Structures are given as C-alpha cells and as structure tokens.
C-alpha cells in the first residue's frame, strides 16, 4: 500500500489544547496521590473487603484494556481489511491503543496489595495462571504496537505494514479473549463460570474502542485539519450500530443461559433485580445500548452527524463501563453457595449475605488517574511523532 498522505505532529494551536493537557495532568496527579495513599494505608480506605476483593479500580482497568484492544480497529480496518478511508487514522489508532493499555495496566498494578513487588510479577511466572499469560499478552501488545507504528512511520518499511497489521489484529483478539478468560474460568464464582464471557468481552471491546477513537478524533478535529470526513463518519456510525447489536446479543444470551442454570439464580437476581439492577438496566441496557442505537438508527435531522456520533460514543463508553461494573462487582456480590440444599442460618463471615460495595474516593481517583494518563500519553505520542494526516482531501482523490 503506497502512502499518499503526508503526516505531521500535533501542533499546539489552541488554548483548549493546553487546558486538556492541564486537566489530564491534574487527574494524573490525583491518581498518583490516591495510589500512594492506598499503598500506605492499605486497602482499608477503599470500599473493598474480603467479599468484594476486586473493586472499582478493576472496572477502570478492564475498561481501559478492553478499549485499547478495540481502539486498534482503525488500523486493522486500514491495513488488514484494506478499507481505504480508515487509512489516515491508522497511526493514531495504534498510538491510542497503546496509550489506553498502559493506562489500564498502571491502574491494575497500583491496585495490587504490594505494588512494590511488581518485579516479582515480572520475573516469576506460573504458567498455569491465565493472569501470567495476560502479562505476556499485554507486554506483547505494546511491543507489536510499537513495531507496527514503526513500520507505518518509516517509508522503507511500509511494505511490512500489512504483516504487522495482521499480527496486531490476531494479537488483540487473543488479548481480549484472554482478559475475558481471567473472569471466565473462576469455578467458585457462579456468575462468571461461563465461556460466553469471552465473546462478550470481544463485542464490548469493539464498542468501547470505537467510541474512544471517535471521541479522540472529534477532539483533535477541533484543533487541526479535519480527520473525520463524511465517508468515515458514515462508516463509523454503521460500525458502531453493528458492534452495539453484537454486545446486546451476547449480553442477553449470557444472562439467559445463566437463568437456565438454577445455581446461578441468586447472582442473576442480584444483577437484574437487586442491588445492581439500576446499573444494569439503566447503565448498560438503556444508556449503553438502546439510546445510542436509536440515535444512530433513527437519525434525527436536527442533530449533525458528528454530534450524533459523539453523543452515542460517549453513551456507549459509559454503558460499557457499567456492564463491566455489573460483571465484576456483581459476580462477587452474593455469597458463594457452598451447601446446596441447605440454608445458612448464621455465619461469622457473611455466608448469608453482606453489605453492598461502596467505592471510595481513592478508587475513583486511581481510576480517573489511569484514564487521564492514557490521554496524556496519547497526546504526547501525537506531539512527538508524525501520526496525523495533513490533508484529508488527498485521500478521497487517491485511487485506493
């Protein structure tokens, strides 16, 4: 594929650029402070306890990781599937994916009980653990991403772009599946003991990744020449519709199969009718799927295409995180059923029920810190590497 485009770095032009930088930096600071406080005082200052051991930081981290894999879409469509109107955003898409992954991983690491022992995690592996495999998948993603970017940046290596793109594409599918599997193979947790989580995570990654890409591109468009032209806009709207439908489909199937298995009833009741029902129905189903779907399908003339896409993306992101909240927190929110056929009359440690999870300000701080870091990293990459196409029009004219 010959590159007809000229790329340049992001030039600071508007005040809003610096405001965004400042905003991100402040949140990274808040995140760092939260992490330090948590490491010093212990997880006692979070809402987590020995029932809910993975809390809000995991929701943020998994959201970012899943979005990272999805954000690679632009590049995959351009180089693997040869969709030419995605070509201009291919570089941006890789840089964004890498930044999101780093943000997510950092949240994950800082939520460890002993972040100071990270070196142990990097040097000793238990190869039966999916977690270990994921460490390889994540670092591998960064390496492949960097290589891919390099192949695209350097003219003489352009012919390897297709190869790099294919490898990156395969890798990201495995990565998302692997992330889903972290949750999918927990025999002790009824709500999670399902192979359907893997495809659910892939669908979720497509929605969230596309949504983040859209939002970033629209933000960039306010600062410089336009990234999203009419063709790309249409294509993105259609893609998002399909991804949302896939997400809805797997989510519904997941819950229906769970309802068939009677031992999963307690958990399902908690998610669909109990403490998490609002997050599930309003957050995931209405805000996350139905609203953006109807916006995108019944295109009202009073809203511009661009605005519509932006709003649906924002909703899709919120809804995706809500779904992850329901999956991660929900799966831990009901007592594990140890004695089928028996009722627990009393227990010294919550076998009959325990208080709902209430995330603390430190967890929000850490989570948003990760998001802000991802944004900051992405802006930094855009600032130092020529990742943004200079002239949008040249593409539409090109024969490809």
């Amino acid at each position, binding site marked *: 594929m010959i590159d007809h485009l000229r790329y340049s770095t992001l030039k600071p032009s508007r005040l809003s650029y610096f405001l965004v930088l400042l905003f991100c930096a402040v949140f990274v600071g808040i995140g760092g402070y939260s992490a330090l406080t948590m490491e010093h005082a212990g997880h006692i200052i979070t809402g987590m*306890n020995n029932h809910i051991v993975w809390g809000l930081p995991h929701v943020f981290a998994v959201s970012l990781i899943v979005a990272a894999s999805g954000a690679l879409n632009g590049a995959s469509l351009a180089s693997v599937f040869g969709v030419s109107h995605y070509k201009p955003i291919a570089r941006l898409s890789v840089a964004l994916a890498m930044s999101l992954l780093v943000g997510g991983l950092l949240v994950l690491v800082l939520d460890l*009980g002993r972040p100071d022992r990270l070196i142990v995690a990097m040097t000793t592996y238990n190869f039966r*653990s999916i977690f270990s495999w994921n460490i390889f998948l994540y670092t591998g993603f960064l390496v492949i991403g960097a290589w891919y970017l390099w192949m695209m940046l350097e003219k003489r290596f352009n012919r390897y772009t297709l190869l790099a793109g294919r490898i990156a594409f395969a890798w990201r599918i495995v990565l998302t599946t692997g992330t889903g599997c972290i949750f999918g193979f927990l025999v002790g947790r009824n709500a999670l003991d399902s192979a359907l989580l893997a495809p659910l995570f892939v669908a979720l990654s497509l929605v969230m990744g596309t949504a983040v890409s859209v939002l970033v591109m629209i933000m960039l468009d306010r600062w410089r020449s336009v990234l999203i032209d009419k063709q790309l806009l249409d294509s993105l709207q259609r893609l998002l519709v399909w991804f949302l439908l896939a997400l809805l489909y797997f989510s519904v199937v997941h819950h229906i199969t769970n309802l068939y298995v009677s031992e999963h009833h307690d958990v399902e009741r908690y998610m669909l009718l109990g403490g998490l029902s609002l997050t599930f129905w309003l957050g995931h189903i209405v805000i996350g799927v139905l609203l953006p779907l109807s916006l995108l399908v019944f295109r009202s003339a009073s809203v511009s295409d661009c605005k519509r896409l932006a709003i649906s993306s924002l909703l899709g992101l919120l809804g995706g995180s809500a779904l992850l909240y329901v999956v991660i927190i929900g799966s831990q929110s009901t007592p594990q059923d140890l004695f089928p056929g028996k009722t627990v009359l009393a227990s010294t440690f919550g*076998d009959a029920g325990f208080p709902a999870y209430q995330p603390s300000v430190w967890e929000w701080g850490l989570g948003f810190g990760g998001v802000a870091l991802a944004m900051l990293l992405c802006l930094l990459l855009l600032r130092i590497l020529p990742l943004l196409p200079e002239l949008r029009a040249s593409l539409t004219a090109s024969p490809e």
Partner: protein
Amino acid sequence: MLPNKAQAARRLFLQRLGVFSAATALPALLSSTVDAQSSTKGVSSAQRWGLLIDTSKCASGCDACVRGCHEEHGINSTGNEHTDAQWIRKIDLQNNLSGQKSSLPMMCQHCESAPCVDVCPTGASFKRADGIVLVNKHTCIGCRYCVMACPYKARSFIHEPISDQKSWAPRGQGTVESCTLCVHRIDAEKDQQPACAVACTDEAHSAILFGDLNDPDSDIVKAMANQPASQVRSDLQLNTGVRYVKL
C-alpha cells in the same frame, strides 16, 4: 530490588567493614547445611495432612476453634468482620427438606487440585509436598486472584498494617493469607495438632481430627473407614484434604 551498581557499592561497604575472604565460602556453606539435611528433613509427599470434621460433635454457638486459631496466629479483630482476616469461620446450617440443623467450621480445604494455586500469577500460592496449600507471602503481590478463585471463600486479603505479630506467624499488609494447617506446629514436632483441633478437644467436643490421609493406620483414616465423609462442593472434584462427617 536494587540496581546492581548500588548493590556493588554496598557489598564494597561491607568489605570496608573488615571482610576480605569469606564470600567465596557461601555457596559451599549453603549447600552443605542444606544438602546434608535434605534427605532426612523437610516435607515429603509420603504424607498428606488433612482434617476430619464431625459436624454432629460440633456445637452451634461454640467458636472455640476460631478463637484458638486467632490466638495462635495473632489475628486480632479490628471490629470489621468484612475486612478482618478470616482463616476459619463457623457456619450454622439447616437442611431445607428435613429441617435438621447442623454447625461446622469452614476453612481452607487444602485441595489437591487447588484453584488458588492454578490462578496465582507468581506461584506464591502453592501446595507443599505434604498437601498443605499455603501462600508464600514473600512472593505474593496481593493481586487477590486466588481470593476470587477459591470456591470456599477461605482466603483473606490483609487490608491494613498489622502490628504485634507472633514470631512464629508473620503477617502483614497487602498480601493474602489463609489457614496453614498450623505448619509451624506440625513441622516442628511429631504429634503436634493444629490449634483449632487442640481448642476443640479442650472444649471437650473433639469434632476436629487431624492426621495423615496417606497412612492407613492413622486415626483419621480409620475414622473415615467407619463413617462416610464428604467434601464440600464435591461437584468441583478438587479432592479436598478437609472432609466432613454428616455434612
């Protein structure tokens, strides 16, 4: 971990303190003290330690085993049961059909195919040769995946700094812990019992029997020959080392 440069400087400092010769002797010294004993000492898979809990002897409302365990390991309540360490807990049950009530202690079941061992990214969660499932707190990074994986909810994460530990039971913030079957006691001397079993016997209930599941002459194996003993969540086929009579 320290970068090598810093380490080198520190070793040099030690040298300055007056040592010039001994370093080369270390490997020899280590291998001699260890190898000489490895044949006779250390755990072996000839044994498999386990517990047999007779729920008909276990009294509802009695928590002697829990207190015994906590005392032995210096686990002090902070008043919040949800964040405190819970190595062993008491559960009262009622059969949905017969209405019959029972009571039992629940702790790490020391599974042969332990989910917590499978999922641990660093291998800190491990099974000793004699079947005891432990956390090596020196390599535990506090990811809590094992807590998620445990079907018995037998693992606790330490949420806050701990002080006044017992010298034989080191415990600290940010790592996961669970019942160790009192390894420090049973390793030290023959015929030592875990603290919960001792406490239960002291209370004259004798509901907890400790012993070697591989030894046909042990009390625990004989007792299991007399009455059927079952595993909690036997559907998972984890081959637990803790068994219950009249579950």
